């Protein structure tokens, strides 16, 4: 029931995924000479969607609002940049586990320190850790200071001498990112529907009660924190490959704030919502940036409007469209129970979404 959505969610997401995946077919017809630039934008959106989704595990599912999530994003980027050799491509088979290992260890270390705090204190401690790393990196010689580090060669994905996916080719890299996003999505979908996910839901609703039942809630929260961190680091690694460099800006609280806005726009706690949010945010950003130099004002107004009009984000719009919501409101609260039971009975036997 929880984390299970009406069938139209699956249909809409499938159509959108197919549309994105087919971009190489229709991109040139629509954008002409701009097609390559648009492909890069689209790749970036896929990466940011993965990043936003990882934060949703913390914010939407567990209920921990982190303002330092970009720490992991930047960590992934810098791990790749610093570990890549200067004159030859690194192997993806080494880089991916390295990025995951580094982010998991740092996530564990930070997690142990911050996970016992709640609400505003969690926000502030995560922000503090994010900014600590930001200032450490941007003043460190080995990490290139404020200039960051350039990545001369993208890692290669090969078995022996045979290249599996040519990551230098923008099209294959695009599909590689799409694949990572899908893996991330299905992993989180499985996770939220597992028992572990159920415990996280319980913590979200009432952590105190979970403790009274005998759950070590900190342990569950810590694992979720580490998982979210590792996923964000993978997104950061992909972003660094895309840009060709790692930059302190990727670590800063601006990036953390942006990804939170994507969550708000897309709809928290739904996993698929943040994907839509990341796309919507980037598309809006693209339009606003071209329209005016004062685009942050437009973006701010949009976010405020979204919060007012769409409290559950774009995802909420799909799960419960306004015309359906209106019908629900017309019914008296007394009828709510029967209705809910019907809704549940109709969704329980099928596995969907």
């Amino acid at each position: 029931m929880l984390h299970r959505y009406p069938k139209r969610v699956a249909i809409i997401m499938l159509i959108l995924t197919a549309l994105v995946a087919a971009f190489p077919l229709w991109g040139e017809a629509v954008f002409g000479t701009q097609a390559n630039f648009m492909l890069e934008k689209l790749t970036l959106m896929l990466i940011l969607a993965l990043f936003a989704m990882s934060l949703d595990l913390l914010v939407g599912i567990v209920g921990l609002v982190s303002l330092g999530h970009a720490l992991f994003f930047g960590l992934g980027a810098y791990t790749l940049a610093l570990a890549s050799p200067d004159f030859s491509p690194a192997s993806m088979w080494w880089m991916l586990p390295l990025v995951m290992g580094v982010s998991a260890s740092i996530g564990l270390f930070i997690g142990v320190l911050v996970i016992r705090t709640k609400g505003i204190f969690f926000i502030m401690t995560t922000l503090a850790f994010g900014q600590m790393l930001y200032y450490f990196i941007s003043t460190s010689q080995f990490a290139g200071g404020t200039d960051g580090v350039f990545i001369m060669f993208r890692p290669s994905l090969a078995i022996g001498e045979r290249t599996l996916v040519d990551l230098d080719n923008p099209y294959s890299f695009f599909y590689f990112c799409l694949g990572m996003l899908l893996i991330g999505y299905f992993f989180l979908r499985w996770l939220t529907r597992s028992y572990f996910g159920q415990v996280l839901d319980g913590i979200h609703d009432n952590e105190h009660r979970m403790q009274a039942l005998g759950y070590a809630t900190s342990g569950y929260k810590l694992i979720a924190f580490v998982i979210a961190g590792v996923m964000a680091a993978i997104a950061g690694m992909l972003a660094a490959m895309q840009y060709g460099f790692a930059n302190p800006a990727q670590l800063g609280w601006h990036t953390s704030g942006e990804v939170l806005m994507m969550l708000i726009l897309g709809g928290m706690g739904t996993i698929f919502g943040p994907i839509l949010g990341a796309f919507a945010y980037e598309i809006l950003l693209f339009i606003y940036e071209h329209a005016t130099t004062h685009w942050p004002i437009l973006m701010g107004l949009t976010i405020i409007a979204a919060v007012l009009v769409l409290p559950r984000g774009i995802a909420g719009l799909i799960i419960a469209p306004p015309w359906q919501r209106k019908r629900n409101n017309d019914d008296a609260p007394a009828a709510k129970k029967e209705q809910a039971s019907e809704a549940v009975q109709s969704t329980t036997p099928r596995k969907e979404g």
Partner: protein
Amino acid sequence: MQDKTILATHGLTRRFGGLVAVNEVDFDVASNEIHAILGPNGAGKSTLINLLSGEIPPSEGEVLYRGQSIQGKSMRQIARMGIGRSHQKTNIFPRLSCLQNCELAARIHMGGVFGSWRSRLRAHAVSERAMEMLETCRLTHRAYIPAAAMSYGEQRQLQIAMVLATAPSLMLLDEPMAGMGREETAQVTELLASLTDRYTLVLIEHDMDSVFRLADRITVMVDGSVLESGPTEQIRTSEKVRDVYLGRHDEEVTA
């Protein structure tokens, strides 16, 4: 009633600033009895339950569970020692279904943080146990409904089912019938009465009829101290208790 003491307190005191909420309480519970705590509002009943379940630490004195002090143990550890509790405020997980609520509680036996990733066979056992508890509490027909959509009385019953599902040897129930209608109160009273052969209960309750029907022993608290403690009959006929507390309910009790 067996005379095997499962829980005992010695000189248990809790102060909140200048207020002494619980004052040098000596209290004990024998296994398989229902021990009710009575007292007017502000007598320190809920504070006492909170001390027994380890939710707040005592200022002085100690709580012994099976001869072992619960001092310094976390709520989680105490819950795993076998003390289950329900709260006065309805305290369920509204977005989860009735059955899932119960499963969360039942899964506690599976141990460890990674208990949630165990096999399907185990999962089946958990569902079965959760279902069993729902049946005990007559909630089977509500199993797949989100807890938020259930009636208040049903939510209270679900809370009891959840405490049961953690397989506690001692259950602390804080006003399980608060805010219930007559019919529901009677139902829950029946339910609690049917549990006595398997569980030990500490019960805070305002509903006199239920308390006198259920309890083997009653402790009456006034202003944080124990006024009198003894078998139900003794409390029913006690002058002291009648003066302080039951006086107002005189007609109801004798009726």
